[in-house]
């Protein structure tokens, strides 16, 4: 559950050997280790290694030829930064099961904001352990640091043995770490070293002004961010919702009914949060995090804002049941998250009978498949009705035209061949959908001019037509004979029944 207080806590995940781990997952492990290389000018240089290769003395920055000479059995692959980036994003998506506030830190890091989430796991230490364990199960080695700021957590993950800095103790935790923990550019770092500053603590102790002048604003900024004196610019992988609730499931669930119970439980949290704000939920997203595989998301809408836990959860049951096969959760779902994607003022007295029918229909068939109709005060027949998703608030309804209107209207008027004995009169017979129809009776014309904003639209003369079999059509002639056109065209626009 989110508390979103000002106090934030950050976990920095460092995927130390992301490129090698990615290849190992593809079955590229080798007895003498694995190394990846990049081309630098004409040379091939090692860019990443796995743990085995590292133990055997192969390290990034080494020339590929040297590595080969040292370890002839070393497996060599070309680096693929695009693939690494793709995998990093997938791991970040995986992390969203723990918290919605996930920030990508390319090329090999992820930040999670965990202030509101850690208690669900029994505290930060347990959550940290769980993250490492779960990523490890998927083949990714990770170091995870936790602190008040992303910068401090990053420094801990990369350089510290104590991986958690308690709230308010970032400065103390960072002080003994090397200046590299600030993530300065290499030149800046080299400069500081030449000045004899080796730890972050040395920097903190220096007077601010000269330090800023010498090393530049960038270093000052990084230090301030790590110490929480300045807000870092972060881009969330997906903007975290203001109101959400998560549930970590004790054991993976596969069946729709158990998942529904978990969703209902999480909905109780959402209900509390929206109630405190006097709101109801208009759109609710349920994300299912499978033990392996991509998360699935189901979004449902409420035509009238709801907030009772049962009402919030109910539409998901149908979707979970209907989608259970297609979701194909091989090993079950281990976590769920509910996001209040859209909220609105809650009206306790609103009549919800048909609203709930609409919601149930839209949850399974889609918001576009369920519509409400209204009449608009416009002359053009196409503009005289409003068709909108029934999840939207209903449109104001005008009185329908006085002249007869058909029950069914074609989305596009259908061109017909008509024979009219007099230019302005009704047709005598016409061919529609390849069948010749003899007109028995006609009523009209009703003249409908193009609306002023569409001056170019020709005038239409509408007729109600009954053919000899009793079928009823709404037909129009487009264009005034002799004034707008010499060859008016005829259309069937609708059927009366």
């Amino acid at each position, binding site marked *: 559950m989110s508390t979103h207080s000002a106090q934030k806590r950050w976990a920095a995940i460092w995927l130390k050997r992301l490129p090698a781990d990615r290849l190992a997952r593809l079955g590229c492990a080798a007895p003498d280790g694995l190394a990846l290389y990049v081309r630098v000018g004409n040379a091939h240089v090692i860019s990443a290694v796995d743990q085995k290769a590292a133990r055997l003395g192969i390290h990034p920055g080494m020339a590929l030829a040297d590595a080969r000479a040292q370890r002839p059995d070393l497996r060599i692959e070309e680096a693929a930064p695009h693939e690494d980036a793709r995998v990093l994003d997938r791991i970040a998506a995986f992390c969203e099961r723990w918290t919605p506030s996930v920030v990508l830190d390319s090329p090999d890091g992820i930040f999670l904001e965990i202030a509101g989430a850690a208690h669900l796991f029994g505290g930060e230490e347990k959550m940290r352990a769980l993250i490492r364990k779960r990523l490890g199960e998927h083949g990714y080695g990770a170091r995870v640091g936790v602190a008040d700021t992303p910068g401090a957590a990053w420094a801990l993950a990369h350089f510290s043995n104590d991986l958690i800095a308690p709230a308010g103790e970032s400065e103390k935790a960072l002080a003994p770490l090397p200046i590299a923990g600030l993530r300065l550019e290499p030149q800046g770092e080299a400069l500081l070293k030449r000045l004899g500053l080796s730890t972050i603590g040395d920097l903190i102790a220096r007077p601010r002004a000269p330090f800023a002048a010498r090393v530049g604003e960038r270093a000052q900024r990084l230090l301030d961010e790590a110490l929480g004196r300045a807000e870092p610019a972060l881009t969330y992988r997906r903007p975290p919702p203001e109101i959400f609730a998560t549930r970590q499931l004790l054991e993976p669930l596969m069946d729709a009914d158990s998942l529904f119970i978990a969703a209902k439980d999480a909905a109780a949290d959402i209900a509390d949060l929206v109630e405190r704000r006097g709101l109801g939920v208009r759109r609710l997203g349920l994300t299912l995090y499978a033990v392996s595989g991509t998360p699935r998301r189901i979004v449902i809408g409420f035509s009238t804002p709801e907030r009772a836990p049962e009402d919030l959860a109910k539409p998901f049951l149908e979707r979970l049941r209907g989608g259970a096969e297609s979701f194909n959760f091989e090993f079950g779902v281990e976590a769920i998250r509910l996001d209040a994607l859209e909220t609105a003022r809650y009206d306790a007295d609103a009549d919800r*009978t*048909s609203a709930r*029918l*609409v919601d*149930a*229909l839209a949850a*399974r*068939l889609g918001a576009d*498949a*369920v*519509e*409400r*109709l*209204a*009449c608009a005060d416009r002359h053009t*027949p196409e503009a*005289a*009705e*409003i*068709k909108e998703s*029934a999840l939207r608030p*209903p449109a104001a*309804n005008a*009185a*329908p*035209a006085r002249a*007869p*209107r*058909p*029950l*069914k*209207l*074609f*989305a596009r008027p259908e061109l017909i061949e008509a024979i009219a004995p007099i230019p302005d009169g009704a047709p005598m017979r016409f061919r529609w959908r390849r069948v010749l129809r003899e007109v*028995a*009776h*006609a*009523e*009209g014309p009703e003249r409908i001019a193009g609306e002023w904003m569409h001056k170019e639209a020709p005038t239409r003369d509408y007729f*109600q*037509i*009954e053919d*000899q*079999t*009793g*079928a*009823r059509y709404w037909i129009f002639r487009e264009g005034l004979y002799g004034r707008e056109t010499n060859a008016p065209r005829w259309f069937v626009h*609708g*059927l*009366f*029944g």
Partner: protein
Amino acid sequence: MRKPAHALLLAAPAKVETPERKGFFGLIPPARLHEAIPQTSADAPRAGFLLAALAKTLKAPGAPLLWVREAEVGGEGGELYAPGFAQLGLSLADLILVRARKRADALWAAEQGLKREGALTLLELGARGRDIDLTATRRLALAAESNGATALMMRGDLAGASAPSAAWTRWSIARAPARCAHANEIGPLSMTASLIRDRGGAHHARFFLEWSEDEHALRAEALGGDLAEAFAGGPARAPRLRRA
């Protein structure tokens, strides 16, 4: 409201009810599933119109009217048009329109609409698609009867006329030329409705139906047979909704 004693006497069923005696509306009680089948494919729009016209009498005021249409129906016969619907005297505020891509979705949606007393569901099916079997109609009929809601279903396939069904009544609908059209006056929209199945006991009956624009109501007149003539032109009364 208590009825006077003589009214109760008059209302007592003295003899076997004939379809003609029941009248058209008496044959279509609420809280049941009823079926309409177009006599030819060209009659499908008229059958759809009849469903809407019946909504006037079968729906409780303020209760939802769920109109479920298979996507195919809209392409063939046009989309439901709000001004035309409102001109039938029906409230657009009660209307919920569902466009179903699959037949299974259409049947499921129709069932949802039958979950409240007094509600009405119109189900307009196309000519193609999987056959509607006995189980499917049984579900709808059961939902209608147990919840006091009414379901009207149009089968678009003409073969449906002989398909097994749990519907209370089944009607064959054909368009008919207006009987009283004049020069530049087209006359009332007309059709014939033939009762081809009736669980209520009647076997066959035919009615001539006209839509009166002035009264916003269907006028029904029994056709065929000597007995029918005795009732020809008689007033058709809308049935009262059963209240649980």
